[in-house]
Each structure stands twice: as C-alpha cells, then as structure tokens.
C-alpha cells in the first residue's frame, strides 16, 4: 500500500486553514521535485490530461513563466490568459471571463490580480482548485512557500529563527503571506519599514520602524521591492530618505548573524532597497529562490490537482 498525501485545503488562496503539517508535506514533495529537475529529462507525466489555466489580470512575466513551466514539467496542458490584452480591457467582468475559460475544461486556475480577493471570488464561482499567484496587497502564498523552502534549505529549521522583512510592508502581499507562513513554521518574524508603510498590526509578528532592532541578530533578512509610486502618493518623502533609513547595506547586514541569508522576492531595484551588489553576494538566496520556485510550484500543482479532478 502506498502512503497517501495529507489532504490539503482545496485551494491555495492564502494560509487560512493551512497548518504546519500541510506545509511540511508539501515541502517533502517539493524536495522530490528538485530531484526531477536535476534529471536529464526534466519532465514527468503526472498531470497528463489536466489543464491548468494561468489567468493573469495583472502582468507578471516571471511568476507566470514559473507557474507555466512548473505545469508543463508535470505534463499538464497550459492555457494562458492575460487580462491586460484581452476582453477584460473591454470591460468584461472577472466572473464572465472565468466562466468562459471554465467552459473550455479547465482543471485548476492560477490567478494573479492587482486587487485583493478575486481568487476568493473565483473559488466561489468555479468549484475548481484556485492557486493565488498574488492578489493586490493581500497574499502571494507560493512566493512565501518558496521563501520558506529556501530558508529551510539554508538554515535547516526555522524553529526560533529571527527573520527580518524590510521595506514597504503595508502594500506587500509577500510580507503578508510570509507573516502568515513563517510563524507557522516556528520562526520569529520582524516586519520593518517606514511608519507610513507599516500596517497597524498583524498577528504573530513584531513590527518596528527601527531597522537596527529588526536586523539585530537576525537569522535571515528579506528586502522588499519599493514601488516608486509610493513617493507620488505622499507616503514617502523621497528615495534618498528611504535609502537613508531602510536600505539594506553591507554594513547594516552586519547587524544580523554572520552569513545570514539575504532574500528578495524580485524584481529588484538595485541601489534602492538593496545596496548595489549585495544581491550577488554569497549570502544572497535570490537565485535559489527562483530555482526553488519551480519545485515548490510543481509540488503545489501535484498536491492540489492529483486525485481531485472534477
């Protein structure tokens, strides 16, 4: 008799309803997917006969490519929809768009959108597994999973580890998803940024405007992308002001534990949130994050699709 997967929630919208066992089971599969990716033929027939739609109402080439390659490596058919270039621009609603796609026989949806909650609505409308590839400021669960996976790879365990996430926390789905996931795995999460870019309070994490306090003895540091439009909205006085207060520099990284890995979800503004060459330094996990993104997304597809065809 073969062992069965731990039953995961039907969708990956955020980490509500997920527990540590779910994530560890998923990571176990992801580690085995890494082996598949090391083979001469980096493709397995597991999802033959499944069709995965990547529905990107907001453009994100990197995330889309990562998901589509993950699906193809599992032999799923991939249907690629981009809202920016299609009927959405003509005012078709999310629901109409999704129902139209659904009529084409889709087994699962990967949805990216600039506004929070659309993946939840899709879950109500479609009854198929929905994987949130980023919704507004709210959640980007596969990014958090690959961050945690990369951290585990480097640190062995996250139990009691201090992870500092620095930057525009308020508008960051990456920060929010990591703030849900990392404490679940035992980590102590610090969120740090300018007062105007910190939300009022999130459960199970510590928030501070003091960068030194956040980085002090940290086991890992994650810098977030700073959207330049924050300056236009009056939330930040200027770029130099941000750099002065919150840029991760070689010197400031020295406040963390020696060799503490540095993460960035990409795409990076070099010399804004990170000092120039820091992303290329030995302690940078940025490339591992991208590589692990593949394995983690293959695992997510496997867990959410296999045995659940409707």
């Amino acid at each position: 008799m073969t062992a069965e997967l731990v039953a995961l929630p039907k969708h990956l919208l955020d980490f509500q309803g997920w527990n540590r066992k779910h994530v560890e089971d998923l990571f176990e599969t992801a580690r085995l997917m890494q082996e598949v990716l090391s083979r001469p033929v980096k493709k397995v027939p597991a999802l033959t006969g499944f069709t995965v739609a990547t529905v990107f109402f907001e453009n994100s080439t990197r995330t889309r490519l990562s998901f589509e390659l993950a699906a193809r490596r599992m032999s799923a058919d991939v249907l690629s929809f981009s809202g920016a270039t299609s009927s959405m621009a003509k005012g078709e609603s999310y629901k109409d768009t999704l129902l139209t796609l659904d009529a084409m026989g889709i087994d699962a949806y990967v949805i990216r959108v600039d506004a929070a909650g659309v993946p939840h609505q899709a879950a109500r409308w479609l009854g198929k597994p929905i994987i949130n590839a980023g919704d507004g400021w709210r959640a980007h669960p596969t990014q958090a999973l690959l961050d945690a996976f990369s951290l585990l790879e480097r640190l062995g365990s996250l139990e009691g580890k201090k992870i500092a996430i620095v930057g525009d926390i308020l508008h960051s789905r990456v920060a929010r998803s990591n703030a849900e996931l990392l404490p679940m795995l035992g980590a102590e999460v610090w969120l740090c940024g300018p007062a105007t870019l910190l939300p009022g309070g999130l459960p199970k994490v510590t928030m501070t405007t003091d960068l030194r306090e956040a980085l002090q003895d940290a086991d890992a540091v994650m810098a977030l992308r700073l959207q330049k439009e924050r300056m236009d909205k009056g939330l930040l006085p200027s770029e130099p002001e941000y750099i002065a207060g919150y840029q991760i520099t070689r010197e400031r990284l020295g406040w963390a534990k020696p060799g503490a890995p540095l993460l960035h979800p990409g795409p990076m503004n070099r010399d804004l949130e990170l000092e120039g060459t820091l992303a290329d330094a030995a302690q940078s996990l940025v490339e591992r994050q991208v590589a692990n993104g593949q394995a983690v997304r293959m695992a997510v597809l496997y867990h959410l699709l296999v045995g659940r065809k409707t």
Partner: protein
Amino acid sequence: MKGELLLKNIRLVDASGERGPADVLVGEGRILALDGGDAERTLDASGLILSPGFFDPHAHLREPGQEVKEDLQTGLTAAARGGYTDVVSMPNTTPPVDTPEAVAALIKKSRQIGQARLHPAAALTQGQEGQRLTEARLLKEAGAIMLTDDGKTNEDAGVLALGLSYAASWGLVVSVHAEDAGLRRGGVMNEGPLSYRLGLPGNPAAAEAARIARDLEIVRYVWGRQRPDAKRPTLLHVQHLSTARGLELIRQAKAEGLPVTTEVGPHHLTLTDERLESLDPVYKVAPPLRTQTDLEALIQGLLDGSIDCIGTDHAPHTRAEKEQDLIRAPFGIPNLEVAFPLLYTELYLKRGFPLATLVERFTDGPRRVLGFRPIRLEAGAEASLTLLDPRSERAVDPARFASKARFSPWAGWRLSGWPVMTLVEGRVAWLGMGA
C-alpha cells in the same frame, strides 16, 4: 360614512405604543375610524400589524442617468414593497439634480408611477462640485426637501457653512456624508486588524469622527449667527452614522442643544467588518461596516434617540459592477425591500428592542427630521400606512427584488415582519398577500 377599505382586527403600532386590535376604516385618504364601519372592501387583518407609512430619508434611485442601476419605477416599487410610503432620493445622479427643473421632472414622473411618494433631495452645490451654492429657494419651490452633496464629501468647510446658513433661511435641511476624504483615502473597508491582515485599504473610524467634529463646529458657528426666527431648527443632518465615536460627538452636540440630527443604515446595525473576511464586495459600503462595538453603540443610540431615524442608504448597482474586485466594485447595497423585516427580526425579535421605538425610527423619526407632521394611528390621520406580517418567516431572496440590484448581503437570512400592504393616502401602492 362609507369607507374604501376596512382592516379588521389589526394590531396598531406607532410612536405612541402598541394598541388594538382595532377595525381600521380607511377612506378619502384618511383613517376614518378605528371601530369599523361600512367599506367597499374588507380585509381580515388578524395577526397583522398596522404602522404609519415608513419614510426613508436617504435612498439612491439613480435617475436620471444611471437607470442601468435603478430607475424611479423600480426604485419606488422597491420602496413600496419595503413598506415605505415616502422616499427621499439623493441627487448624485448623472447629471446631479441641482436645478428646479430637474426636481420638478422627478416629482412629475414619480406621480405617474404611483408607488411610494418621491421627495427629491437636490445638490447643495452646483454640479455637486463643492463650490457654488444651488438655488435653495427655487429648488424648494420645485419640491426639493433637502440639500446634499452626498456621494461626495464637503471638503470646503467655508462652502458648507454658507450652504447651511442659506438653506436654513429657506427651511431646507442640509445632509452630509460625513467622512474626511484625506483620512478615508482609498479605504474600502473599516481600518483595523482585519484590513491590515487582508491587505485592503482601510477607512478609519477617525475619518467619520473627524468630519463630524468639524461639521458640528460649523453648525455651532452658523447657528450662533442665525437669527432666532429662523424657519426650522434642523440645520444639519448627518447621514449614515457608522461609528461609536461619531455617535458620541452627536450625542454631546444634541445635549448642548445644537440643531443636528442623524440616521443609521440597516447594514450598520446588523453587519460588521468581519464579513469582509469573505472578500465579497457585497459587503462594500460607504461608510464601511464597522466593529461589533460600533454596532452595539449604534443600537443604543437608536434606542435612546441620539439617532433620529433609519436611513436605508439604498444604493443599487448592477450585479456586474458588484462582481468586480473589492477595490473596483462600487460602494453600496440595495436594502429598501429588507430594511424593516431585517430590523424587526434582528433588533426586536432577537434583542428585545422596543417595537414602538423601532417603528418610530422608520416613521415619525424621519418625518421630524424633514419637517413633516407625525402620523398617529387615529381617526383623521393621513392614511399613509404600512401593514406588516409578524408571523410568516421568509428567507431574503434577491432574485425577487423589485430593485434592479438583485444582490444582498442578507441573502438567505430568515426574517419575519415583512410588509404585506402599503397604502399611500389610502391608495394601495403594494399588496403582497392573497387578499
């Protein structure tokens, strides 16, 4: 004297309390008697409740220009089915109702429709642009009952002060959507732990409280320089109160004797921001659903009279508009057709809120704010009346709405106290039972 309609054996509930059963004889647009008499038509109303007709001081009926969301026909029908005999329509239409001609046209059309009576509110400033005042005197002559820039917020305190002063001199109420635009920013839900977690832009309670505090200062200022023979006491009506803090400010102002009134919407009395956990735009309203603490305070305010009346803020949109995401979907929900059964069930039945007080907030409360005489259920009173069925329980089914907006945050809620007949000056505007 022979009447047109005899309602036999009916319980009477109005602001003065509960009485009956009585045999209410209606004719010539009035209540002729409470002890029966000959009538062309007799209805056994055993078990039903008779109330003065409901008056909604705040509804968006969308005509002219936004008929895809609602029009006078559907909006006034929805009102009649909700037990409303009178409705105030907001002027944030396309274009805004800011001329006497527009007001007159709405009234004329509403009379042809013959459902609930329409009392248009007109814009306080031309085009609702917050700069030049509208023609208060001419608007009143044409039938406008209130001036407001609702739909927008009155950012210029000076303009609001001028508008209040001028409107009061012609006996018109000014109502305000009291939210500070700068504090509110792009907020789509109550700012708090849930908005932080959901990553949705928050609208803090402070946006309402700060604006109410400012507006009360304006009232104090204008009232202080008002001549003592000013036509009407109510200068400022604060729309759709949503926060405990805002209520506290109004309570203090009233205690001080400032001429201020306020209303609360059915949604702020029955739903909290926790609903947004579902990320469903059906819970997106302005001002946003607040916390349980706010809800409890609002119920208390409604009970003690700090809040004068229920204003539905009926704000219909198309389903497609409401099926956008939480950022893009418009604010607002239809609720004319559920307001009373909702509060009858949730406040009276479940919390023991006094029925006569609840009825007062639907009837005399708004009439008092707007300068109408109250309706007492006695011989000689205007026969604008609502019959309610306290017995039958029914689930809210938006598909059956007369409103074009066929969605509801209360869909599936089992309610009782549904209106079964609405009489407007003795005329049957809605009859929802097999009689």
